[in-house]
């Protein structure tokens, strides 16, 4: 058999197999694309508002990989199978980072506002000093409240991880 006739036979085989698979799907009634709901325009079918979720169900192609791992870092709900201490470490580290960032942000924002009013001439040096002192006191109280909140959420996450581990055992 020549190379040309081999290629022709192979091509006709592909054609026949492809047509046969399409016919089989037709028989299952599984080739009618028009019936698919457009999820992007139907918010009732969505539980999250992010674009990747919407893209995935209605219009997008077969997803080459899961988006769950990319989202994990943003979701409080993520629970993992590997050892919980790693997760706890992450949460604790995050907490310390939060605390520093919170204090810096609050102090920075308030200082900028006070200095602005000083330079604008609406505040004297003495009253500026008093305001800064008061502001530092308030910002500490405010960040403490936020830290308390984060600590509670951390404890809740740990409680849920432990619950899942117990169920698995």
């Amino acid at each position, binding site marked *: 058999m020549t*190379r040309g006739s081999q*290629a022709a*036979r*192979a*091509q*006709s*085989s*592909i054609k*026949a*197999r*492809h*047509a*046969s*698979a*399409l016919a*089989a*799907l037709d028989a*299952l*009634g*599984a*080739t*009618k*694309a028009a*019936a*698919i*709901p457009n999820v992007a325009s139907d918010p009732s*079918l969505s*539980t*999250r508002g992010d674009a990747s*979720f919407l893209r*995935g*169900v209605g219009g997008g*192609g*077969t*997803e*080459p*990989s*899961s988006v*769950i*791992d990319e*989202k*994990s870092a943003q*979701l409080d*709900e*993520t*629970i*993992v*199978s*590997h050892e919980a201490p790693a997760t706890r470490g992450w949460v604790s580290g995050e907490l310390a980072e939060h605390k520093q960032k919170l204090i810096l942000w609050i102090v920075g924002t308030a200082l900028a506002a006070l200095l602005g009013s000083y330079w604008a001439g609406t505040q004297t040096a003495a009253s500026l000093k008093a305001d800064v002192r008061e502001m530092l006191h308030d910002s500490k109280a405010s960040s403490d409240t936020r830290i308390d909140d984060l600590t509670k959420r951390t404890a809740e996450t740990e409680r849920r991880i432990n619950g*899942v581990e117990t*169920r*698995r055992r």
Partner: protein
Amino acid sequence: MQITEGSAAVPANVVVDGVKGTRRKARFIVEVRYEIAPRFFDIRGNIIATTHQAIKDQFPHWQSDQGAVLFGESAQDPVNQFHIGSDRIAFRIEDAESVPVWASDADRYLGLALDVLGKEIRTVSRLGVRFIGVHVGRRTATFEQYAQSVRERFHKLPPDIDVDYVDSMAHLVHKNGQYRVGPVRRGEQWLRAAFRRPDAGTPGVGLGIDVDCCAFEIRHKMHADVLRAFRHVLELTLTTEEALVRQAGLLDD
């Protein structure tokens, strides 16, 4: 069972991979989508408890969030994934041993997911099988040779402009999916987007082929309906991939 060349009647459970000799790097995916199954949110623990035991060898790790349980071969950034979610099931393997082995595993994994979710899924809205791969010919050796082959065999170029083409990709969408074909070389963005391990086993240059075929609205009375549809869609994907490799001339080398 003997499969003769040119036979149209290939049984649904037999996988014919005509381009295994050209495929050097690949990611195979099957994905089943359905309208959100609300009970999924209540049974995530049950899914893990009943499924993980059966797949621990291949997927020792799992993670769960609001929308899905994901099983993987590693805890961080798994390459191979078995995903059971509120709106989809997916089985994704990179550099599988062979297409028949992957197909047989996919049957098993889909079966496990349908076992645990089956009653919640009445109609499969979309079932897709996607093969992303890098193919090489015996005599095609440079990026420019692949690029020229794609230009000559997949594009009709305007004759009135005189430009030096350096790259291209053909992307065609059809009623049952879509495909993309283009020359590719190691380090390209396309490889990083397509694969979780873009450098592992990837040839220096080749033909990138991405085939995604799908079926819609499959009534789910029995698992066998979905598994049968999977085999037919797999056949669409395989034949499309082989047709593209032939069209590119890699089997003539």
